[in-house]
């Protein structure tokens, strides 16, 4: 019997992982990607090239990123929504690369695992007022084998022997990492010493960066320093493209770039997806048909596509009887600490950061939580030793009014932010809120003629209170670093205006971490997809990006997206799928 055919919408982390696994299992796979392919040779036997370079100008010019001119998004705060404001911003709202490989084409490649407690936060710690906290319908143990497989495939570096006991209890590992850590960055080492003097434990950041020449046939990272936010010129960085999509294509999966899917087509009764409608690279309307449709267009675009696909059978958007499609949008909430050093600590050499601190994950239940009216506070991972590159530095100095001219040039010569700064950024967990959501803008259209996604979003006091609590600890670490003359936290709340799009210094919303919007759960009344990413209401429709996340955790989400995707793919392909069909919707017990 021939295997079920599969359409995958989006070639990023979740889409490529699913395509790879399903192609290996013998399924015909068609991947529709909205962007171009910028890795010449991808999917061929010629070897994978790269059109990326150490080029800050190109990185700011919608090369791999979605062009906000063609595909703007709109945003507003919850308060503005309450006042009937349709939108207060048009442009880039946490845009991701729109390119073969998706966000992973220029990701920082940090691959922490979520912790056990993340999957059961409601049970363990109780509700949070004003938030829609819930347990995930699966556990860490369900996901662990898939974490192992994704890490092996990506080529993840790290050192299990240097990880804190707490970390390994919360995220147990059966194996050492496939690769040893990169050379530690000097600035990060200084901050790590500062952290150690306060009893915190910095350790090598697990990341999908090749530290051994030739591993998986790819080059070793040479620490060029143009990493997060830049495509890799030598493909030393593992990604959806080089680690999954390439092999999927080699084995017969089909990739159609510049294909914009605008609708999921269903049977008349709405119970089955028949395929998708899309615009091809020349703007012609096309249809593709398959037995299974997998959405992996990112948290924002997947929700938008479900809403665009409303029909008589699904009047509020496809698979949206629960009303949960688009809701519970999470971005993380970033708090920055900076240390200033008299020496040139060249934090730009290396893959963004090589150290991580996870002492601030929480939960913390002390008086600061109670005073804020919250049962607990949580922070997140601290990327330790971050940098600012030259053009970034120039733009930051130029940001205040009239800050050009001789003063600007002096700042560039002294170069405090580039040569003398080492940063810490804490990826604060943000609360899921029903009112933080993606819907369709009532007026603004994109270049394809379809309503753009509108993001309504305000911070919960949870993020602000957590940032206020943990932020000074970041500053303290920076101050204690050897050679530091200044350590500061850029406090959230004072500098951040609690708006939907964030700003440079507090609550940065350009996190590229997009979660929620099609949350998973056992109960179809309160969730969109089940524990395998399958839509409750459409038997052969799956979601494989950040959308199914129930909570945000304080961790970079991509590894978890990929692990969920492999788990979903195995479910689709395997015997377990057949068994599961017989007792659908029944929760598995752990």
């Amino acid at each position, binding site marked *: 019997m021939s295997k079920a055919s599969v359409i995958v919408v989006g070639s990023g982390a979740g889409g490529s992982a699913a395509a790879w696994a399903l192609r290996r299992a013998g399924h015909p796979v068609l991947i529709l990607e909205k962007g171009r392919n910028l890795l010449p040779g991808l999917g061929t036997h010629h070897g994978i*090239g790269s059109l990326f370079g150490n080029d800050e100008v190109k990185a700011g010019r919608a090369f791999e990123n979605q062009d906000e001119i063609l595909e703007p998004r709109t945003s507003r705060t919850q308060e503005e929504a309450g006042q009937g404001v349709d939108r207060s911003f048009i442009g*880039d709202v946490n845009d991701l690369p729109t390119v073969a490989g998706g966000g992973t084409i220029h990701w920082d490649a940090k691959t922490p695992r979520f912790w056990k407690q993340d999957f059961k936060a409601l049970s363990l710690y109780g509700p949070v007022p004003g938030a829609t906290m819930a347990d995930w319908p699966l556990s860490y143990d369900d996901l662990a084998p898939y974490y192992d497989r994704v890490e092996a495939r990506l080529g993840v570096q790290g050192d299990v022997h240097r990880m804190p006991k707490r970390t390994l209890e919360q995220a147990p590992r059966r194996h050492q990492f496939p690769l040893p850590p990169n050379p530690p960055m000097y600035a990060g080492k200084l901050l790590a010493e500062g952290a150690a003097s306060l009893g915190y434990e910095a350790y090598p950041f697990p990341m999908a960066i090749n530290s051994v020449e030739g591993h998986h046939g790819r080059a070793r990272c040479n*620490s060029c320093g143009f990493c997060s936010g830049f495509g890799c010129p030598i493909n030393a960085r593992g990604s959806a493209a080089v680690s999954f999509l390439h092999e999927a294509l080699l084995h017969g999966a089909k990739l159609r770039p510049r294909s914009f899917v605008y609708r999921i087509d269903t049977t008349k009764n709405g119970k089955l997806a028949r395929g998708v409608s899309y615009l091809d690279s020349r703007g012609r309307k096309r249809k593709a048909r398959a037995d299974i449709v997998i959405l992996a267009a990112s948290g924002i675009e997947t929700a938008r596509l479900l809403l665009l696909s409303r029909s008589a059978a699904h009047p509020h958007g496809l698979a949206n009887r629960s009303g949960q499609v688009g809701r519970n949008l999470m971005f993380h909430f970033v708090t920055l600490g900076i240390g200033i050093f008299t020496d040139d600590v060249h934090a730009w050499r290396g893959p963004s950061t090589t150290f991580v601190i996870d002492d601030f994950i929480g939960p913390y239940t002390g008086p600061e939580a109670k005073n804020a009216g919250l049962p607990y506070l949580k922070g997140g991972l601290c990327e330790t030793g971050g940098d600012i590159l030259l053009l970034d530095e120039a733009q930051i100095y130029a940001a205040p009014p009239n800050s050009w001219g001789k003063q600007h*040039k002096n700042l560039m010569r002294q170069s405090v932010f580039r040569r003398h700064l080492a940063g810490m950024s804490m990826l604060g967990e943000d609360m899921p809120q029903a009112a933080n959501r993606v819907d369709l803008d009532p007026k603004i259209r994109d270049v394809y003629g379809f309503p753009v996604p509108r993001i309504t979003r305000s911070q919960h006091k949870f993020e602000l209170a957590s940032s206020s609590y943990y932020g000074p600890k970041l500053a303290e670490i920076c101050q204690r670093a050897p050679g530091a003359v200044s350590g500061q936290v850029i406090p959230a709340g004072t500098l951040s205006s609690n708006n939907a799009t964030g700003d440079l210094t507090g609550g940065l919303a350009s996190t590229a971490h997009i979660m929620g919007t099609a949350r998973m759960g056992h109960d179809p009344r309160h969730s969109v997809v089940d524990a395998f990413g399958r839509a409750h209401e459409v038997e052969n429709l799956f979601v494989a990006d950040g959308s199914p996340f129930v909570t945000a955790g304080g961790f970079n989400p991509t590894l978890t997206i990929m692990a969920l995707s492999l788990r979903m793919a195995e479910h689709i392909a395997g015997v377990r799928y057949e068994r599961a069909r017989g007792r659908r919707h029944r929760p598995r017990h752990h």
Partner: protein
Amino acid sequence: MGEGISRRSFVRAGGALGLLALVPRARLEELLAASARAAGTGGGHFLTAHELDTLRAVCGRLVPGPPDDPDPGAREAHVPEAIDLLLGAFRVSPPMIHAGGPFSRRAGGKRDDFTHFVRLDRHAALGWRIRLEGTRGKRQREFAGPVRGLQQIYREGLAHLDSRAAGHFAALPGPAQDAILSDQSDDQVQELVGVALSNTLEAMYGPPEYGGNRGLVGWKYTHWPGDRQPRGYTDAQVSGLDAGGPGFKLDAKALRGMERFLPALAGVRPSRERFWLRSRGLRGR
């Protein structure tokens, strides 16, 4: 260099995808010379000779060179000519908007891939047409409302500077030019300064293949190594202080300046993702 980035296969595959357009080596020099000549005769790729003169004056205030500053500034770095090249990008094929990759010849690459600008496909070209030329009332471009293009912002902004300067902005003394450019009550001036500053910093501190940063002056006084592929850094360079001890010591004055500067960042949007639309003028509400 590993099998993964074999030069020959890379070029072949790139050509097959239609993404690479090989540019004659001397082309950038010719294009820039055309802009440079414009001052005396006709015009640049987009700007007239007079507009280019005005832009030179503006850029010279945004990043000053001698005699106001000891190090070369935006004029010396050919920043105004690079901005003109961007504004007239579609008069060149492929437009010099996205430099190629992966390597230049500055850090061990065998040829300068950056000069092989990446061809825009139909979709990307439309975005850049709108960004540069504006929507101009064309239905195909106004799907999300009207957009003022950079060409119009520059053309009208430069003319406005002349109107603020009794007809000839470039002829004013530097301090008088500064006074106009820093007039926060004049929205049209600030609209121009917003885009000109972003484009000036790009051309001053970005790779020279875009036409600015002539002689790498923007990387010299900042002591910036620029692009580092394929050489990268050695493990020792990553993990330790540079041999011979610290190259640069931060002095107390610089530190105090920075501590004063930090609060000014309140409400500032992140640069790399934002600076094209910093003006808020490109896309109306």
